[in-house]
């Protein structure tokens, strides 16, 4: 196995930012104390079970719950009729879709769609009762792929769905929910200037986020029309809003307490069980716990879109990209909302290409409604584009990193999706890979090397944070964004840096919806950026307050007080400095408790880029691909806690490797998933992989107090193409369909398929 190095270029003289302290919640997580979604049990709690559709598409003729309700221990049953009609919610169409996805009313749109839910005195009894509910279905024809769904005579999922974004607007309904497009320049002229044009069509299958913790929720509905929910999610405020919408309640009637979250990757930004648990609790008058089995997680939550993408790109012999054309169709699952918009915005974003046209379609099919998955929509787009770039580089005899460098977006480039880029670090990631010893290491027989790059926007959005100074001179940082991969640690580091105190004196906690101000979800790689900015802003208010209190104590002007190394100092040096602890002790006499809150809508997000290099060996007998070595260079802006930055980079890469080589939803002809378990839906295991070498590039984001960009997502964008390009280098075969599983690779190298 390879020896690795972990390079971190150091920041501008920070004391705490850039260090690697043990995370505050770590101890509970290595001793089994941390409470995840399914770990809470309340006195008198009932257990629930959910009845799901066995059909991919069917009309519900009738539901008879009488036999189930008569079973011993069964306390409540709910069906679609117990919830407000989504069409009458008076909300936005996407809210209607969320509601319709939670529980079916007249039609089921995918295998796994909820039809009813039961609460009973034990889980087993709830499951038996669910099985005893009699549902009469009238099966309908279904569609499973974008090709089937876009065919002229395709059966329709939603009889009223008319494509948005078409001019003129279509008269007839279809399975195409919307069309997006971006254009610039003159495509014909661009292709005419090219010396080489490559056009390919790529397909990818739906893949699941694959978090190890299944969805779980406990609800306790009180008698005063309020309810409390404990659940693991990427954002308990969003859970509250969505659950309230589905129930037809005011959001303030719900309190959501965040459990520790066992992975999300985008898939826990949406609700599934929460409204069912509240409805069952309200009906039974007892707390109810609902936990998904793994096969329910596969059949009914996530995944991300299967796609079909056609890409055509032209290049001159000296490596100038002259034109690019992309046609993209993304499966949305049963309701509109695939990430094709982001796919279309990201596909060309890393490059400065004068002439292009991108057209994308959001297509409904009879599969579970897709949910966000790490850089939603971007990995499939990059798979297509970065594969074609590899072929172009080979075609003109140019090093693939050099081709990318010649066309890379830099500060001031008009991004393909609109705005001008501020300072970005794409070129630096390319140079980091070009200059890495990995890029020059020798390769053996049947081995090949591939590179690919990727872009992600990163998000800002709304965050609130409250900071308290405790009487012992420690501080509590209260945030409302769940900690999914070490964010408590990075909040503590930024607060320590700002306050000039030891990070060990800072306790970061994630509070419920009634204890801290509104926060958007942990997603879009936004927490270190936006919640971090709120923490920094609150700390700055506290520092101003502390200086004022010291000035009062010293009877001087606040301008004469400086905050240095965690204490108030008199500029003239005439007073003994006052530590945080000293000021905290006398807070009762200087104006009361010391705390500050900051709520903001974070602006100035910093885009993230990643460039990766991968070595593979392909077994010519079996088609099996082994990842020999992998290096990823990513611009983090500033790495607040480098270990968790590396962890995000490594985790994203490995998910991308799984997507490239093994993972896929397999459906039978009836639209039933054939591999809803980790045995047959194979995510990477430790013995499949080498170490994942990381190069943390730091090109600070000028708009953030510590230069943070956000690191969670972009790492999953390049691996699909990096692996494909490495396989092409090893075998001479260009694989265009994911996953590149042994049978596919073998067929390609033995000439039985496209190659």
């Amino acid at each position, binding site marked *: *196995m390879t020896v690795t190095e972990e390079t971190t270029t150091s920041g501008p003289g920070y004391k705490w930012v850039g260090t690697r302290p043990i*995370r505050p919640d770590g101890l509970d997580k*290595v001793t089994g104390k941390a409470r995840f979604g399914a770990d809470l049990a309340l006195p008198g709690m009932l257990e629930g079970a959910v009845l799901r559709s066995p059909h991919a598409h069917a009309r519900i003729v009738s539901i008879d719950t009488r036999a189930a309700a008569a079973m011993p221990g069964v306390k409540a049953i709910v069906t679609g009729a117990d919830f407000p009609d989504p069409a009458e919610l008076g909300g936005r169409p996407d809210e209607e879709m969320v509601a319709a996805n939670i529980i079916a009313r007249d039609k089921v749109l995918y295998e796994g769609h909820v039809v009813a839910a039961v609460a009973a005195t034990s889980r087993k009894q709830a499951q038996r009762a669910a099985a005893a509910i009699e549902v009469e279905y009238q099966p309908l024809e279904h569609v499973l792929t974008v090709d089937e769904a876009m065919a002229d005579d395709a059966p329709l999922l939603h009889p009223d769905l008319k494509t948005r974004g078409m001019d003129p607007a279509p008269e007839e309904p279809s399975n195409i929910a919307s069309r997006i497009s971006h254009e610039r320049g003159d495509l014909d002229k661009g292709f005419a200037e090219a010396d080489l044009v490559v056009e390919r069509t790529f397909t990818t299958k739906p893949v699941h*986020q694959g978090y*190890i913790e299944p969805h779980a929720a406990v609800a306790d509905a009180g008698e005063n029309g309020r309810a409390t929910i404990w659940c693991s999610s990427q954002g308990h405020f969003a859970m509250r809003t969505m659950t309230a919408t589905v129930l037809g309640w005011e959001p303030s009637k719900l309190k959501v307490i965040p459990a520790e979250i066992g992975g999300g990757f985008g898939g826990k930004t949406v609700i599934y069980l929460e409204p069912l648990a509240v409805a069952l609790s309200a009906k039974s008058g007892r707390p109810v716990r609902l936990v998904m089995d793994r096969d329910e997680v596969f059949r009914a939550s996530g995944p991300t879109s299967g796609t079909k993408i056609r890409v055509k790109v032209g290049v001159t012999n000296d490596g100038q990209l002259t034109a690019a054309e992309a046609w993209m169709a993304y499966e949305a699952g049963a309701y509109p909302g695939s990430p094709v918009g982001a796919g279309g915005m990201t596909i060309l974003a890393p490059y400065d290409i004068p002439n292009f046209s991108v057209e994308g379609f959001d297509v409904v099919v009879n599969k579970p409604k897709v949910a966000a998955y790490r850089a939603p929509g971007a990995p499939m787009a990059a798979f297509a584009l970065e594969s074609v770039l590899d072929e172009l580089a080979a075609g003109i005899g140019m090093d693939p990193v050099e081709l990318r460098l010649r066309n890379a977006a830099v500060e001031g480039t008009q991004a393909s999706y609109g705005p001008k880029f501020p300072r970005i670090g794409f070129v630096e990631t390319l140079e980091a890979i070009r200059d890495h010893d990995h890029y020059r290491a020798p390769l053996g027989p049947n081995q090949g090397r591939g590179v690919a790059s990727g872009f992600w926007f990163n998000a800002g959005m709304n965050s609130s944070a409250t900071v308290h100074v405790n009487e012992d001179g420690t501080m509590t940082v209260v945030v409302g964004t769940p900690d*999914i991969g070490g964010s408590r640690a990075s909040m503590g580091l930024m607060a320590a840096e700002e306050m000039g105190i030891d990070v060990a004196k800072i306790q970061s906690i994630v509070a419920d919806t009634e204890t801290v101000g509104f926060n958007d979800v942990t997603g879009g790689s936004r927490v270190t950026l936006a919640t971090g900015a709120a923490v920094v802003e609150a700390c700055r208010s506290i520092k101003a307050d502390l200086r004022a209190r010291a000035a009062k104590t010293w009877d001087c002007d606040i301008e004469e007080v400086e905050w240095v190394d965690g204490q108030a100092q008199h500029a003239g040096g005439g007073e003994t400095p006052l530590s945080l602890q000293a000021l905290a002790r006398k807070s009762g006499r200087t104006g009361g408790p010391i705390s500050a809150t900051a709520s903001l809508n974070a602006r100035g997000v910093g885009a993230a880029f990643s460039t990766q290099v991968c070595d593979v060996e392909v077994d010519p007998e079996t088609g099996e691909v082994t990842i020999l070595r992998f290096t990823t260079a990513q611009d983090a802006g500033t790495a607040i806690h480098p270990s968790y930055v590396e962890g995000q980079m490594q985790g994203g890469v*490995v998910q991308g490797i799984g997507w490239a080589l093994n993972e896929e939803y397999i459906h039978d002809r009836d639209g039933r998933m054939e591999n809803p378990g980790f045995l047959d839906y194979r995510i990477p*295991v*430790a013995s499949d992989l080498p170490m994942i070498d990381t190069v943390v590039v730091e090109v600070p984001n000028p708009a953030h107090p510590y230069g943070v960009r956000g690191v969670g997502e972009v790492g999953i964008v390049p691996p699909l193409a990096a692996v494909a390009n490495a396989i092409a280098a090893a075998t001479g075969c260009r694989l265009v369909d994911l996953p590149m599983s042994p049978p596919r690779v073998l067929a390609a190298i033995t000439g039985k398929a496209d190659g």
Partner: protein
Amino acid sequence: MTRTHITCTINGDEVEFLCDQDETLLDALRDEVGLTGVKEGCGTGDCGACSVLLDGRVTCACLVFAPEVDGTTMVTVEGLAEAGQLHPLQQCFLEGAALQCGVCTPGFLVAAKALLDRNPDPTETEVRYALAGNLCRCTGYDKIIRAVLDAAADMQTATNGGSTAATTA
């Protein structure tokens, strides 16, 4: 249904509980005994989140029926730290940032302890194969493998240095 009475030793304590005939050890540990550090990721033996040491062997608790454990000795993640001292694996996981969400961590710690108990000086490849039954979706395994190798090295040093005390917080 009559429930079965079980007596066993868990994390050094004698424990008694009642369970159903068809109840899994995983459900019994979580629901009857209250050891929720043992996690369910799949319920089918494919993820290792429910790993426990059953008479010294690493076992998926979701694949064992609770009535089978009468008279056995078990260790769960809750029993790894002794007398307030973290096991070197726990310490190395913390220092090496070998957890992100942490839901897989209990199973990894238990499986890694089983490995180091029988092979105190494993190679990277041996660690990777020994932990191949434990899924982690967050870390890409890199930092987990390093933490296990670090813990092995720490334990070797402690042993060779003649000290029996593990390195702890």
